[in-house]
């Protein structure tokens, strides 16, 4: 059990070592490079605020995904749910683009959550009633929502005064998440993420729904035997997951971005899958994991500036985390043994 929560740390250490080796091969001093990557970005207040800013959507989405993953439902399409949530929330924001009012932001947030929820319901309904594979459906729907967003920002929703740039109008101030500190980008959306953490802990560990999720995740046969309403549960966990992703999308467009355009998310929805597993699908583990993974985003940006290496190294690091996590989970209980076999014994 202790090991179970320990392997994420092993994975992180191995990732750092692996990163160091890659930097060395690229001809950098690995210690220096790693310092640029992991320490420089958070060595000042602005950096810390950026870290939290990036961790917020990751944490929110991962919390939602943990409901799905814990119950053996493989929702891979959080990126699509995020996008669709942003479209619906953004649509509401555009409706009020020239108005002010305290009620606007809550409306946008609710709309975004509902948008994500509806979008997540598609794979859930197809799975429960038509026996489709939720991995494929949810993944493919990502591209549907991204193309829809593309269409909206170049077509009907594009800014009439925007010289045909693929973006919408700027949202009004009432549509923006209040900033926490002057001059920093960190905004109140972080409280949404923290609320989601607390709420998910309560639901997962203290309610009948949480109990059903736990049992279904450990043994679907047992869940069936106990008579849990499997279909309802699948719909509910997808709805929770979609709502969280939708909230994350809304947080981005009403927070740092302030409008809709093509690039509202640097694949937060996909990266959050790594966050969820690195956090062991545990609400508090996910907070920690979202910070670690957010750091790889920031580090990639600093590395691009200072070391002139592409910021896509961030994805390399994220990939390594997942790889080492899965590997250490899998291999931890293995014993390495060198065997010598005679040739004829290998023949078949």
């Amino acid at each position, binding site marked *: 059990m202790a090991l179970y929560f320990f392997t994420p740390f092993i994975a992180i250490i191995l990732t750092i070592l692996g990163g160091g080796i890659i930097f060395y091969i690229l001809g950098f001093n690995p210690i220096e490079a790693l310092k640029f990557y992991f320490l420089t970005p958070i060595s000042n207040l602005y950096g810390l605020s950026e870290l939290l800013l990036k961790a917020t959507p990751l944490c929110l989405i991962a919390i939602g995904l943990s409901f799905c993953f814990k119950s053996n439902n493989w929702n891979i399409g959080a990126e699509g749910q995020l996008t669709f949530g942003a479209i619906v929330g953004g649509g509401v924001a555009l409706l009020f683009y020239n108005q002010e009012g305290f009620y606007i932001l809550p409306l946008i947030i609710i709309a975004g959550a509902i948008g994500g929820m509806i979008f997540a319901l598609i794979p859930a309904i197809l799975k429960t009633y038509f026996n489709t594979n939720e991995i494929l459906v949810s993944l493919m729907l990502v591209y549907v929502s991204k193309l829809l967003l593309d269409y909206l920002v170049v077509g009907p929703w594009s800014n009439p005064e925007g010289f045909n740039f693929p973006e919408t109008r700027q949202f009004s101030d009432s549509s923006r998440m209040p900033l926490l500190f002057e001059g920093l980008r960190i905004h109140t959306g972080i409280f949404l993420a923290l609320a989601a953490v607390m709420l998910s802990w309560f639901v997962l560990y203290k309610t*009948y729904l949480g109990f059903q999720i736990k*049992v279904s995740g450990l*043994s679907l046969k*047992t869940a*069936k035997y106990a008579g849990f309403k499997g279909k309802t549960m699948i719909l509910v966990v997808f709805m929770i997951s979609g709502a969280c992703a939708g909230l994350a999308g809304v947080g981005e467009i009403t927070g740092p971005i302030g409008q809709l355009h093509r690039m509202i998310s640097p694949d937060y929805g996909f990266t959050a899958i790594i966050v969820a597993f690195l956090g062991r699908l545990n609400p508090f583990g996910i907070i920690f994991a979202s910070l670690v993974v957010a750091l790889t985003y920031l580090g990639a940006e600093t590395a691009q500036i200072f070391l002139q290496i592409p910021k896509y190294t961030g994805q390399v690091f994220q990939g390594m985390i997942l790889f080492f996590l899965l590997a250490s989970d899998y291999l931890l209980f293995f014993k390495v043994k060198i065997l010598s076999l005679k040739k004829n*014994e290998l*023949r078949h």
Partner: protein
Amino acid sequence: MATDLRISNVSKIYPGCIANDNVSLQFKSGKIYALLGENGAGKSTLVKILSGVVSPDNGEVFLNEKNLKLSSPLDAKKNKIGMVFQHFNLFETLSVFENLSIDATEDNKSLRVRINEILKKYNFSIDLDVPVLNLSAGQKQKVEIIRCLLRSPKVLIMDEPTSVLTEQETEELFISLKKFCDEGILIIYITHKLKEVLSLCDEVAVMRKGKVVSVSQTQNERVETLANKMVGQKLAKIKKKINISKNKDEIFKVKHLNFYSDDPFETNLVNLNFSVKKGECLGIAGISGNGQNELFQILSGEIITPDTSIIFRNKEIAKLNPKQRREYLMAFSPEDRISQAAVPELKIYENVALNNFKSSNFFEKGLVNEKKIKEHSKKILSDFSVNTDNVELKSQFLSGGNLQKLILGRELITAPELLICYNPTWGLDVGAINYIHETLIKINNQEKSTILISTDTEELLKLSDRIAVIYKGKLSKIMPSEEVTPEKLGVLMGGGSID
């Protein structure tokens, strides 16, 4: 050449338990040896040591005075020790021949010739080119035996070989084993079935708690003496219970139960009709894989079949899920304790909460009422003498018998009118089996009914008032148990018919 296998002072210690405590045994070819013991007595560990799966912490194994280093199953094979495990290691979708050629060291042509020689010599009739999934359990076992024979073994170890066989197949197996023995193969027969020991074996070693407690000639033993040695205490004999009057109301009635599946690993059920009276135990016999799984799941509501009518206490329940059926006072104990009836990773009280019946208030307004669940769990642990009182313990630390007591306790504490159980004593030791049999008899005496789906004919004959046999998804005529003999059941279970 005579074979002499000697185990000398072998010990194996696992964290928290001594599996083998200084075990010494000697086996000589020309005899069939039984290794007898309850679950957890250390038989399996000893066998794993002999077959190279586990290395002992201490002690040595000698074959013809040669000290064997058995550090992998490959070493055991090299030293001509063959092993047939209780669960077959065959690829279901490959043909018999392909299965046998996987670990062979010769080309296919000569292998086929040798296999055919073995088939002829021992009168086995198996088609080498059909997929293994089409074979009966007995035939699959023969394939495993052939696999060993191909390596001309000196020692052949059989681990609980009859647990899936019919009476006829068991007899055939015994004939083959005696033949092997006459040919000089040393046979070690692992079992907890006492009658088999007496009818087949020459010498019997009894193990208890990791130690060898007795080695004796079987001719000097009786079922009772062996059982006492095995359990280490006098067993109270369960009385065959008195049949209850036949004019009771039918409490449970199944009509037109049909099930069709596209999955080739599932069995289709064809028009089953039966009923259960108040206080009665209906036994359903059959070799596993003849539709019992599907039947259990349909009766429990895990599978809903269209057009089936299930009447329970005058209500139609065919469309209800297991939880709803429980509310009508049905209870279910599935065969698979570890991945269905309970979740090993969950704590005891969490497993208890799986039977969330209506009056339990385990989950009030959607919230977990941990206190209530734990109180209830404590009661189950003490009422059904599970050997722990720690409800926070993870179920994986319970032995099979204790886990089964917990499951039965969970199902029975609601005083259900009908309990449906499927192989309730599968893999348990004598003490636990007795306890569970007593419990099942007790609920019948309290005018509650049971449906017992079991592959153990002895158990069925002991507990049932009426018995039917399921074969390839069809149910035989339902017979009063006093008219049924083990032989009759064997014929029906093997697909034959009686008149």
